[in-house]
């Protein structure tokens, strides 16, 4: 795919909340994200940035407008198709790691790839070890996730997001629960992913320092995009 065509394209997205009263959270959002672009989504609480990210994530399908990722139109697709699409094309990193506590580090990273089923189990294991090594976690592969520190758990979560080589990685406050050292570490990893591996990143953040260092900051207010800086 050429660098010109956007990896993610949003046209005229509008969304309402109906509880407790009808309320417009997103107003006519238009956004393009290029391949290898590191984009941060900022704004005050309740401005709709998280809501927008969940629309982009394909998990929220209750909106008007159109969403296109990696050249595929996703608006109107069925839940199962969207799940399969997420599995292959989108990686997620949340404020909390959401690792499965009963499984080892290695198993946690392998699960999305086993779900995709493109490689044999041996290949998946090798790939998972490679991804963990990329994040400096190769010594912990056989540990239970509950035995790791917060920063380590977040790095495992990133390795899991990367296992299927997604086109785009979405983060909801990915450094929100980390100290500044680990937050810096995660930022550097994201930076490397965009510049070396040309994966795109969209991160919702409250951390101005984090946002300032990204390629593009999209600020939202009252459900609208204020204007792209930088």
């Amino acid at each position, binding site marked *: 795919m050429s660098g010109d065509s956007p990896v993610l394209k949003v046209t005229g997205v509008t969304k309402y909340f109906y509880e407790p009263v009808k309320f417009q959270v997103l107003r006519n959002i238009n956004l393009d994200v290029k391949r290898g672009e590191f984009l941060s989504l900022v704004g005050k609480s309740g401005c709709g940035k998280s809501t927008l990210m969940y629309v982009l994530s394909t*998990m*929220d399908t209750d909106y008007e407008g159109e969403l296109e990722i990696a050249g595929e139109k996703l608006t109107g697709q069925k*839940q199962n198709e969207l799940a399969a699409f997420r599995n292959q094309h989108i990686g*997620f990193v949340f404020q909390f790691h*959401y690792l499965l506590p*009963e*499984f080892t580090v290695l198993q946690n990273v392998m*699960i*999305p790839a086993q*779900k995709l089923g493109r490689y044999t189990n041996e290949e998946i294991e090798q790939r998972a070890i490679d991804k963990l090594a990329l994040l400096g976690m190769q010594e912990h592969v056989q540990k239970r996730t509950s035995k790791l520190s917060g920063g380590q758990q977040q790095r495992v979560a990133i390795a899991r997001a990367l296992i299927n080589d997604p086109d785009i990685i979405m983060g909801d406050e990915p450094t929100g629960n980390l100290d500044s050292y680990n937050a810096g570490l995660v930022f550097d990893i994201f930076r490397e992913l965009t510049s070396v591996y040309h994966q795109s990143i969209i991160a919702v953040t409250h951390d101005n320092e984090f946002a300032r260092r990204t390629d593009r900051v999209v600020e939202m207010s009252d459900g609208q995009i204020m204007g792209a800086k930088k």
Partner: protein
Amino acid sequence: MNSRITAFKLSLEIARVHLVSKPKQTIIAMLGVTFGIGMFITLVSLMTGLNKFTEDLTMTSSPDIHIYQDVNEPRSSLLEQLNPTGMNKVYHQRPRQESARIRNAAQIVQLLRQDSRVQGVAPYLASQVFYNNGPVQLNGTIIGVDILEEDKLFDLGSKMKEGRLEDLLTNRDGIIIGSGLARKLDVKTGDRVTITTPEGFTRMLKITGIFQMGMGIVDNVRAYSNLAMVQTILNQNQSYITNINVRLFDRNQAKPMSIELSQILEYKAEDWETANATFLTGNKIRNIITYSVSITLLIVAGFGIYNILNMTIYNKMKDIAILKAMGFAGGDVRRIFMMQSLTIGFTGGLLGLVVGFILSVLISRAPFDGGDFVSLDHFPVNFSKTYYIIGVVFGVATTAIAGYMPSRKAAKLDPIEILRGQ
């Protein structure tokens, strides 16, 4: 195709890890099913065993069709016969002095023997008698039979405790008496017993054998003798027959055939179902109770599984949310929890079969005194495979239903609510 299989294996693996990581909870859920199915099998085996035992007992002494003269049958009055169109009223009509004899018994027997449905026919003669041995006097029944015909119908030979059936043929004044009767009279084979008919005729007979049917109501009162001897005692001629017993090839033919016979013959033909109505009703009620208790147990086990799975899903909401974010479809999530439910159901069910079998074996060996009425020294237990199959099928079905509802809830769970809600 390949990805389908790995996705399936992955769901299985996640289900397995969930089950193994909470062993206590898994085992308790499993024991619920085990207990339910184990009790179902034990109860059903014991109940059907008892039913079958009593049924066999009843059937050994009850013919498929019994033909006799019913003296209590209401008859039309002479007035009605002479004036059939008028309004007649006869008060307190006395029963006619009627003999219990079946006329043309020989022809009826001949007719029945030619019927293709009939396996055997045994005409006999029954009378109330008193048995005397010294000062002991007991009320009972003497039955005059062709002992070999009787053996064909009721397998009398296998019920003999002392003596042989053939001994009766060689002793014109021989008698085979029930075991209870023998004990009360304190007699054994070779002894003599005096019998007195209601008409006051007395005769001394020689005991050639003792039988035991296993039922007090038979063993305590009944004795068999030669047909000719009983005819002599009753002062009747050689054609005097009061009852005809019929054994069919197919017992279920008895009801229609008895209706048919009642119409052809002028005597009452009673099928075994009518004769044993009380006993059959008891059987039915016992079955209903057994099944309702067992099903209740299984439903309780089902609620246990429902609860535990609901709790598991509640605890695993975050896991479900992230699995869905990572691309697990609703069906994959449902499969993970259905697998857990079915594993619990199947393993618990198989264990239940083992428990049920062990309990059944223990019960079948437990000593049980049937008392005077039935000869029974241990509980009769039915080891039919059918109930084991029903048990496992029902157990798995219950857990599948109990597991389906929480699993569907997990499948429908909206990941955004969980992922945002933190």
